[in-house]
């Protein structure tokens, strides 16, 4: 549990909307992203990918390609020292039991999805590399495929993997739901489907690898997980301490750079050629090759009493895992645990399965399985409210979880649950209803709430480490292995260290994301980085503070408890003070370290038996509520977003401006998934491999997002902050679907909520539709 932190009655830096140090470099375009790097003598590399969704490789001949001008290396599966890549829990250092997800680095005799890597080429120029890749002779024999998880689990379905198509299965059964349903006054049933979604960060996957002067394979890559150095070492079959991953500032990640991207290929090619190698995926390649968000089919049956209390829920989830496991089993676990939403449900049955198909692989993406379910449970809530004549806030108020309640999996909520108040606040913030602007336009409003875990599953025994130290001139250095995906991860760490150690932000330098030189901090995923590394920096800074004050106390002739660190000086009660550099010199003389390395361990636990609901799965949760106002063109089905408000309890906002940014950006991504985005596949072939066909929202598609930053003062992060990276992406689709239902009386249950789907539901395309 987080200790109560009282440093100063009023914090100087924490809690203030301070401009981020990295923003200055970025507006000046001085930030060197992964693709902005180069080395003398560098080769350019490309990947040859399967055009088929399911096929056998009957011939693979690289002879002609290897002989082409400028070609330095052509690699296939047989050239990979260990052609197996573990993909179950990126960056994990402790064993995780039975989960064991692997894939081939390069395809052997079988390809299971379009875009599966078959060969690598490095050449003097990119054109030469591409020409050589085209010249590789591959003969495929197409095999039957399966493209829908339901079909994949049917008897006799083509097997994607020998062991069968069922990848994971989680169950929860709590309470006597049959009896509870029998007592229910109203039962609402619904089936909801979500689509394949792409992370679609603006910066495509990219990196450069070289063998450094000390012989260490060094890879500077756009990644959320520098701990992949271990995976590279494994594949290359060299010791882990001979690989170094440097993670520069990312051009966005959103979970899509959690699994390995280019780093293993670069490692292989650098090792083979002995030369620096660069690989940058095109947008088309990124949209084709990267793992997507899982599509879900979710069947919900919800029973409520006449007054509106939910008494029972039966939930059946089926996710498309695509061709390889990646993080599917864990994503599904998140869905299972959050399936009933932020509500008290005494009797719950959840059946959750995910199946292999010959579709693109699916894995981590912001929201990580806890977001698809929001669309289902919040649509259900709305329908129950409507059935009973209760307004959207009222039905949620009646059923909201409170502190001390437990989730269906048995986890007791130990921190504040801001549920009813968040819903009330966003609903009120929509303001008075505006009349429709034209006869063919209807206006509607929708509300959706959610809960999202922050921090890793407790039995993964998560930890982060950070180093904080003073230089002799009193300036401060923070070292921490976080990758900064753009969310202000690094600058928040500076804010925390500067707060504790009484220096100005401009006096802090932060070094991040280097697996050899910065203490490892774990992945920038799972809304964990502020929570985990923030706590590590806080711990290191506190220890350092104590070290310094202990040395300063005798210098000032007072007890160290009477001292404070302010504006670069140690100050005593009476106003006497010592400049920090003076204290540092004394430290040096007395052999007291001027730095501290701290490791923060998250509260750990053992795996729970979900079925019997025995306990804690996640450290804690962040709650939220969003409200949308839409205008519907009743003749075309077009949906225009008019107003959008989003509130989350973030415990404490370390930097309110960054928090607002996370909420606004997450909400718009969620709106994209709700209204526009869809990876369209035909028999596993991706038809949306360009930004002209994979539609992410533009500035003109969305309204301003009013972000309400709510601070309950409770959370497990530093200064009682909660994670906020993922939570805002959950509610938007449901809020919009509920608003559409409010305006039109028609409920859409399939994402994205396209105008054509709405037109069809409105009966505009004839009865047959």
């Amino acid at each position, binding site marked *: 549990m987080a200790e109560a932190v009282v440093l100063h009655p009023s914090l100087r830096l924490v809690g203030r909307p301070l401009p981020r140090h990295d923003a200055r470099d970025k507006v000046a375009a001085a930030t060197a992203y992964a693709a902005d790097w180069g080395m003398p003598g560098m080769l350019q590399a490309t990947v040859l990918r399967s055009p088929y969704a399911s096929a056998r490789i009957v011939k693979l001949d690289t002879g002609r390609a290897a002989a082409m001008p400028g070609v330095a290396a052509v690699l296939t599966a047989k050239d990979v020292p260990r052609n197996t890549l573990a993909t179950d829990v990126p960056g994990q250092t402790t064993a995780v039991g039975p989960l064991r997800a692997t894939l081939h680095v390069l395809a052997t005799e079988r390809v299971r999805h379009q875009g599966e890597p078959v060969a690598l080429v490095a050449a003097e120029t990119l*054109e030469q590399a591409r020409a050589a890749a085209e010249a590789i002779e591959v003969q495929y024999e197409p095999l039957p495929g399966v493209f829908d998880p339901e079909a994949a689990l049917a008897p006799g379905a083509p097997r994607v993997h020998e062991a069968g198509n069922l990848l994971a299965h989680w169950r929860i059964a709590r309470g006597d739901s049959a009896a509870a349903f029998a007592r229910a006054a109203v039962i609402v049933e619904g089936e909801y489907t979500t689509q394949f979604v792409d992370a679609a960060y603006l910066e495509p996957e990219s990196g450069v690898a070289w063998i450094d002067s000390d012989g260490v394979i060094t890879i500077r890559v756009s990644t959320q997980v520098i701990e992949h150095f271990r995976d590279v070492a494994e594949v290359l079959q060299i010791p882990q301490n001979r690989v170094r991953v440097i993670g520069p500032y990312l051009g966005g990640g959103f979970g899509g750079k959690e699994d390995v991207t280019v780093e293993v290929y670069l490692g292989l090619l650098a090792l083979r050629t002995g030369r620096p190698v660069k690989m940058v995926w095109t947008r088309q390649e990124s949209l084709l090759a990267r793992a997507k968000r899982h599509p879900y089919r979710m069947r919900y049956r919800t029973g409520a009493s006449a007054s509106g209390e939910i008494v029972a829920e039966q939930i059946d989830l089926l996710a498309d895992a695509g061709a390889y496991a990646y993080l599917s089993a864990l994503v599904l676990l998140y869905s299972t645990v959050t399936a009933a939403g932020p509500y008290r449900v005494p009797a719950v049955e959840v059946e959750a399965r995910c199946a292999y198909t010959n579709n693109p692989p699916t894995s981590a993406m912001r929201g990580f399985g806890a977001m698809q379910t929001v669309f289902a449970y919040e649509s259900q809530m709305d329908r129950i409210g409507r059935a009973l004549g209760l307004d959207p806030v009222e039905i949620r108020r009646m059923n909201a979880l409170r502190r001390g309640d437990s989730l269906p999996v048995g986890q007791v909520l130990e921190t504040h649950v801001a549920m009813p108040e968040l819903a009330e606040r966003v609903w009120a913030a929509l303001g008075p209803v505006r009349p429709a602007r034209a006869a063919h336009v209807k206006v509607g409003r929708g509300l959706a709430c959610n809960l999202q875990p922050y921090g890793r599953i407790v039995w993964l025994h998560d930890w982060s480490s950070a180093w904080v130290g003073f230089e002799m001139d009193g300036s401060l250095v923070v070292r921490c292995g976080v990758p900064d995906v753009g969310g202000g991860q690094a600058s928040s760490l500076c804010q925390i260290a500067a707060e504790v150690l009484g220096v100005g932000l401009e006096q802090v330098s932060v070094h991040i994301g280097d697996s050899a030189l910065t203490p490892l901090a774990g992945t920038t995923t799972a809304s964990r980085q502020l929570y985990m590394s923030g706590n590590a920096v806080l711990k290191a800074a506190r220890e350092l503070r104590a070290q310094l004050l202990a040395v300063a106390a005798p210098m000032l002739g007072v007890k160290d408890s009477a001292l404070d660190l302010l504006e670069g000086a140690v100050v005593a009660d009476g106003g006497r003070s010592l400049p920090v550099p003076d204290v540092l010199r004394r430290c040096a003389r007395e052999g007291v370290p001027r730095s501290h390395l701290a490791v923060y361990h998250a509260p750990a636990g053992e795996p729970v038996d979900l079925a019997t609901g025995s306990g804690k799965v996640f450290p804690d949760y962040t709650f939220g509520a969003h409200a949308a106002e839409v205008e519907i063109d009743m003749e*075309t089905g077009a949906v225009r977003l008019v107003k959008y408000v989003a509130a989350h309890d973030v415990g404490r906002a370390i930097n309110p401006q960054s928090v607002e940014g996370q909420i606004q950006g997450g909400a718009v991504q969620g709106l994209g998934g709700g209204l526009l985005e869809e990876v369209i596949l035909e028999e596993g072939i991706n038809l949306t491999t360009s930004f002209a066909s994979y*539609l992410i929202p533009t500035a*003109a598609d969305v309204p301003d997002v009013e972000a309400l930053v709510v601070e309950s003062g409770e959370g497990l992060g530093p200064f009682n902050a909660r994670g906020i990276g993922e939570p805002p992406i959950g509610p938007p689709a449901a809020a919009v679907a509920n608003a559409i239902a409010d305006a039109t009386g028609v409920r859409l249950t399939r994402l994205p909520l396209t105008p*054509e789907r709405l037109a069809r539901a409105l009966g505009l395309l004839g009865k047959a539709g």
Partner: protein
Amino acid sequence: MSAHPLEYAAPETLEDALALLATHGPEAKVLAGGQSLVPLLNYRLARPRLIVDINGLPLASVHADDGRLRLGALTRHHELEESPEITRRCPLLGEAARLVGNVRVRSLGTLGGSLAHADPAAELPMAMVALDAHLTLASSSGHRTVPAREFFRGYLTTALAPDELLTEIAVPVVPGAGWAIEEFSRRPGDFAIVGVAALVSLDRHGHVEDARLAFAGVGDRPVRVPAAEDALRGGEPADARLARAAEIARDALEPASDAFVSGAYRRLLAGVLCRRALGRAVARALGVP
């Protein structure tokens, strides 16, 4: 990024340009704004041997004479939007150009390029078909004039021969005509799913003297619907009549389905947008702002 040899020529006179096209024929590709051609080159979907950059040719002029607006093929989309000369004589063109792509496309993209590229969902080809524009095609052996309706031959296919250059577009100016463009796209700036251009002129009695309707996104080229136009002519432009004409147009169209949008939905849109466009065009013809 193409891995084969590519030559580049930037002729300074029309004669030189036409001579290059005559010599190299299908091996050559004309480069205007590049907003359709360069993506094709980048993806190696087009692999010409020679790029003939026509941006140095004197084809960017705008003239008005004897009831026609004559636009050089190199008139850029942003000029169509911004030029007072064009806006005064043919405001439909500005409305069409504003809907094309994003601001960067409009900085460089040209009228001639858009017509020559002949995307069936594009706004400017639709506008030219509605306006009954005439296109001048030049080659080293002379030049010919083709009505817009005959210029478009199919998906990305036109009447241009490999050695021909589109040099000028002549748009008849109809004083007092009301106009409107309606389009529907998933995001602003995207190619339209369906677009419609309407032109309506009224006689002294306020009856419809002439009406023209052209659609984009409903076939392999811009489509006129004469039956709907006929249904408007001669009568009062009352709402019911506009709605009826829109229904006729809708029913006459047979848009195909693809992986993104069904034909039935395109057809629905065509009807709704047509009625709205007619309503706005009539209002403008009546002088209602």
